[in-house]
């Protein structure tokens, strides 16, 4: 490859131009607003299991049945995300330290491997949805929506480079993520049927998920974090993985008006995308040590996203006040591992099965499996309590507090995907410009409890192909959300 690698990489100029347009338009998903990297916050104060807006296509298809008009909803969530990761010398491989000592570069090498990585990303997440009875005036109601239920992107800040260590400028988080996207976009369709007598509406949904993983990280062939060999030659490499896939999921839900005009109870279920393990296909490019950059190799990548149970209630004790309580149980325990293997593998489940130490359960696949990313995540739960105050027929004020638990054990917490216990504080308002048009704004502070995993065993204790560099450190994050929505009803 010629020295003008930058020009060679720009073969994706049409994509870059498209993405520039995207950036100008300012749409991108946020990250980890609920458990794990579930990122659904569309609808603002009215994005819950008991709301009947078009957001119900995702939150509770049964709730659609309680709307009696044609409705369209445009919603945008802007997120200012700040995060940091501090890595200490204790996380550096012993073999790396030996090589640095051999090269007489230990002090400078530790500077290039440790310290604080930071990121500040301003991103936006759209929702577009509609619901209608198509003018048929039947108990059947249909809805459709586009939204982003999972994932996001991150670009860690560049740092001062090092003349001795070419990779240092990408920061201490680079062994897990330099820049990348892990995201599922969704197109959902739903149908609801209302039973007037019991004041009950039941619904089903079908969702198409478009998933993408596009990540760049520092990586060495031995799974370590070596910078140079003992003779001072370059050891640090890079891996670029770009995979995508399409999967389907189903949902069901009900909304029950338990007390007429006073109390509504909602319950819903969203299946795992792909109804289990998702397989994405794409390419992997590696550049290791002083070897020439490898051509793109065809690969498969597997992951498991959660299914989600939601339960909620809204109660209007007086005309001007509504109280709300909702919760979700997200089964992130399905996310046991992610696996990257050669595209020729027919049975990814068998190929990627590992033992407790991270080695392959079936060694005949040693030559096929590139990397296993052990996740071993836990189920999460979230709860939100809030209220609305109706100043008038046009103006509504709302506020809520919430909690979402953490999905990721200490041993598997890394700079590519991290989560914490979190509290949310929201306040907003809705204003009806007319009988047909309502606008709403909600401001939410998502406070994340920082995590310190120093001293815990991490991915460096695993056997290949699960082994990765030490991921211990201090993780911190904060997100400020601004949600704005327009709802048309006719």
């Amino acid at each position, binding site marked *: *490859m010629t020295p003008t*690698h*930058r020009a*060679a*990489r720009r073969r994706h100029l*049409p*994509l*870059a131009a*498209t*993405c520039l347009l*995207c*950036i100008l338009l300012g*749409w*991108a998903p946020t990250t980890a607003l609920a458990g794990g990297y579930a990122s659904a916050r569309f609808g603002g104060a009215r994005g819950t299991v008991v709301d009947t807006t078009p957001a119900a296509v995702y939150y509770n298809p049964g709730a659609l049945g309680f709307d009696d008009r044609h409705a369209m909803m445009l919603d945008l969530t802007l997120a200012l995300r700040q995060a940091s990761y501090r890595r200490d010398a204790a996380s550096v491989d012993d073999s790396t330290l030996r*090589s640095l000592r051999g090269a007489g570069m230990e002090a400078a090498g530790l500077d290039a491997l440790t310290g604080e990585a930071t990121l500040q990303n301003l991103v*936006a997440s759209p929702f577009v949805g509609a619901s209608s009875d198509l003018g048929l005036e039947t108990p059947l109601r249909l809805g459709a929506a586009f939204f*982003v239920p999972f994932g996001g*992107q*991150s670009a860690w800040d560049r740092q001062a*480079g090092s003349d001795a260590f*070419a990779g240092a400028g*990408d920061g201490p988080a680079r062994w897990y993520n*330099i*820049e*990348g*996207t892990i995201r599922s*976009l969704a197109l959902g369709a739903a149908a609801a049927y209302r039973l007037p007598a019991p004041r009950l509406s039941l619904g089903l949904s079908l969702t198409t998920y*478009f998933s*993408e993983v596009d990540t760049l990280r520092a990586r060495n*062939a*031995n*799974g370590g974090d070596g910078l140079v*060999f*003992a*003779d001072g030659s370059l*050891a640090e490499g*890079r891996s*670029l993985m*770009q995979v*995508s896939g399409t999967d389907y999921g189903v949902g069901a839900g009900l909304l029950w008006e338990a007390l007429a005009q006073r109390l509504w109870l909602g319950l819903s279920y969203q299946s795992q995308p792909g109804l289990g393990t998702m397989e994405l*296909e*794409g*390419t992997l*490019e*590696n550049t*290791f*040590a*002083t*070897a*020439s*950059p*490898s*051509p793109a*190799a065809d690969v498969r990548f597997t992951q498991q996203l959660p299914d989600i149970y939601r339960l909620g209630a809204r109660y209007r004790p007086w005309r001007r006040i509504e109280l709300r309580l909702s919760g979700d149980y997200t089964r992130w325990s399905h996310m046991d591992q992610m696996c990257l293997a050669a595209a020729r593998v027919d049975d990814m489940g068998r190929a990627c099965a590992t033992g407790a130490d991270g080695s392959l359960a079936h*060694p005949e696949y*040693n*030559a*096929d499996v*590139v990397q296993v990313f052990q996740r071993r995540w836990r189920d999460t739960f979230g709860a939100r309590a809030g209220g609305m105050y109706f100043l008038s027929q046009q103006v509504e004020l709302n506020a809520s507090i919430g909690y979402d638990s953490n999905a990721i054990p200490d041993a598997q917490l890394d700079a590519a995907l991290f989560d914490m216990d979190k509290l949310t504080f929201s306040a907003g308002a809705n204003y009806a410009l007319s009988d047909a048009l309502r606008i709403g704004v909600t401001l939410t502070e998502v406070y994340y409890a920082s995590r310190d995993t120093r001293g815990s065993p991490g991915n460096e204790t695993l056997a290949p*192909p699960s082994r990765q560099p030490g991921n211990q450190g201090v993780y911190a994050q904060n997100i400020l959300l601004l949600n704005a929505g327009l709802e048309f009803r006719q």
Partner: protein
Amino acid sequence: MKPAFTAAILCLLAMQACTDTDGRYGDFLDRTATLRSSAGDDAGADAGERLDFSGEYLLALSTVLAPDAPMLFAAEVEVNADLSALNLRLQPLATAQQPNPRAPVGDPIDVLGVPYLPDGRFIAALGTLTVPGAANPISGSDIIADVEIHGTSLPADGQPQVFCGRALGMVEVPLQFDLAGSTFGAVATGDVATTAPLLACP
């Protein structure tokens, strides 16, 4: 549909901002371009003359991926009577991490009738090799590679017989990379278990 094109469609559909992983990867390649190996033209020995260097050797293959972690082979060389060709057998040896370090693992690789040039050089096309993971000191995974060794036999001059040179080709599994810049050295020995490896031509 190629992943890049798929991502473009996703971006259009969702009007999603996209990270520039390709650009940042290219930046790294630019920063490290001068650090990457050349074809290793200077890794061979000076030309000499043919000699009968038949015997048993410990051969160490030092790859650009991890030059200080060589793959080890027990090598047998048989030079024919008129010194015009040689046969080569390479038996992979277990790494130091295995229960029996330097024990034979997997099938030997035989290359017959390698032309042996008057200046002492030879080029042996080893073909597509499959080497067990137990012989892989870098990742422990099985290896599939197309390898060619360009070697030179060196006069012993009272020292153990040596032949050495560079290794070329492409590793396909578990990682795809070009071997250009890799070297090998082979030292005559009666006991591969105790002989210190030679990583390149002296």
